């Protein structure tokens, strides 16, 4: 299924018709901001129900790549294939319609609004004339939260009362409920305790069990090594490596990130 380890690493920029099993494939992506080249020649893909760690130092281009995928930026060059079809992700709405959902830690939830209302923020369930169906919102948000393995008693409680790990859980439950196929988690463990980070990693496994693909962005390889099946490492806008977990180990990855140099073979 994932015979594309070598292919992903290659710097080939030739456009190709893709008949593969991957959920999303970004081919030959380039992005400039003025004269600065933020991304150069990136080939990146995610398979169905796969957990990919997108790793790189600050300024490596992780966010830029993800913002192209989620429609906030458009690439200056390159193509995106989604479920085998070429797509034009012109804005975030298109990404959402495709089933690509991004979870930003700081931007995900409104702290003084109830859990249920956060889950349905912007997509409220309504009865008549736009009045909210609060009963169903409570019920369905609890359903998604429970499915994720998160234990919360009261969907009417405010998000402010939750721990950092639980908050991530609510944000992830939201994308689970809205049938995301690919979830991008942007530094989901950055401000969390060890125990809470573990909780988030459990959520990630649960997403995979539901058949959802996950891109886990972090600048800290230790945060993602346990959870991810494949690592895509960026440095200064270029792909350093794209390697499956069984073909590498953490020391090797650290070496790569620190040296910032592409593997020479």
């Amino acid at each position, binding site marked *: 299924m994932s015979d594309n380890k070598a292919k992903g690493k290659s710097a080939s920029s030739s456009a190709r018709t893709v008949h593969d099993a991957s959920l999303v494939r970004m081919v030959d992506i380039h992005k400039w901001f003025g004269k600065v080249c933020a991304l150069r020649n990136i080939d990146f893909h995610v398979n169905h129900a796969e957990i990919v760690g997108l790793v790189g130092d600050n300024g490596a281009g992780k966010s830029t790549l993800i913002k192209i995928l989620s429609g906030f930026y458009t690439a200056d060059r390159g193509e995106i294939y989604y479920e085998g079809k070429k797509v034009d992700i012109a804005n*975030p*709405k298109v990404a*959402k319609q495709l089933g690509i959902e*991004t979870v*930003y830690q*700081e*931007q*995900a*939830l*409104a*702290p*003084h*609004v*109830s859990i249920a*209302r*956060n889950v*349905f*923020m*912007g*997509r*409220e369930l*309504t009865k008549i*004339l*736009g*009045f*909210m169906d*609060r009963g169903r919102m409570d019920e369905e948000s609890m359903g998604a939260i429970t499915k994720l393995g998160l234990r919360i008693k*009261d969907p*009417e*409680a*405010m998000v*402010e*009362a939750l721990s950092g790990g639980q908050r991530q859980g609510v944000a992830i439950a939201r994308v689970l409920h809205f049938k995301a196929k690919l979830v991008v988690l942007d530094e989901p463990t950055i401000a969390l305790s060890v125990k809470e980070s573990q909780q988030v990693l459990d959520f990630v496994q649960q997403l995979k069990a539901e058949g959802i693909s996950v891109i886990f962005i972090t600048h800290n390889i230790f945060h993602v090594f346990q959870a991810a099946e494949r690592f895509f490492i960026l440095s200064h806008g270029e792909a350093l490596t794209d390697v499956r977990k069984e073909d590498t180990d953490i020391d090797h990855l650290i070496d790569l990130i620190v040296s910032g140099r592409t593997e020479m073979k």
Partner: protein
Amino acid sequence: MSGNTGQGKRVLNTFIRMRSLNVFIIFALLFTVFTIFSPGHRFSSKENMLVFLAAGSEYNIVALVVGMLMIAGEFDLSVGSILVFTSYVFLSLFNTGINILAALILTLCSGAVLGFINGIITVKAKIPSFITTLGAMLLWRGVTLFWSGGEQGGLDFTQNPVIFKAISGVVGGLIPAQFIWFVGITIVIALLIHYHKFGNWIFTTGDNKMAARAMGINTDAIKIICFVIVGAAVSFAAVMQMFRAATFSARAGDGWELKAIAAAVVGGTALSGGIGSIIGVFWGAMVISVIVMRIAYWWTFTVFGVIIVATAIISRVIDQRRAMLGADR
């Protein structure tokens, strides 16, 4: 014993959860105290109550919509000036002799336009509404003074008995029409912001604009709509005041901006946005207007100052507890 304290704690927790109940109790206490200490308990006399409910409701309506705007994360310091400006708009329209209902509707539209200007400048120029509406406050009062020459103008509503009754009559000899409007507007806004999806957009916009936007909510549009509602509601209060007083005064609405914010804060609205309840603001406005009614003019400022800071501190403590217990409005 332990069962007793457990129950006591439950009562306390219920009390903390019900933010609007806290404010109602403050109102009830003030009302009782003022009644007891007024000579011959004149405070709660029918005449006094009619004035309290009629004149108070004009300001209360303004407080209500200002509270809603604060939940969306914005301020409006220009409400007093919108009030005086739209009062003069109404007076001018009335003097042309056009149909009074048309004059009323045009006045509401003028208020909505002023609100729209506040909103569009705030969101498009990305400057704090505190500044936008501070400018608007000075501008519209200045324009009104210039336009009216600072004069007073009388209105005669004897030709329009029906609409006069509807806006400033007394229902059943007991309840002023203004108070019924106030209650009605409270119900509509409460339904809108606590039960309608639009309300969820207002709360999330005020609470975490980035999150709301990431979820596809047009936060700019939400804020502009709230400003427009404020402008329209304020101009309605202006018309009410004109009907009741039958006169235009260039000083109308002076100081209302801060009183409205005070009412919202006393009612549990956070200055930072995202927190508040319309029923809380209802009782907050009643608290402020009962103080205005009872206490001599020079004392009101002193009392407001103390009440605003005190309630802000109490709110902070209560809201921390509330977060743990879940929120009831």
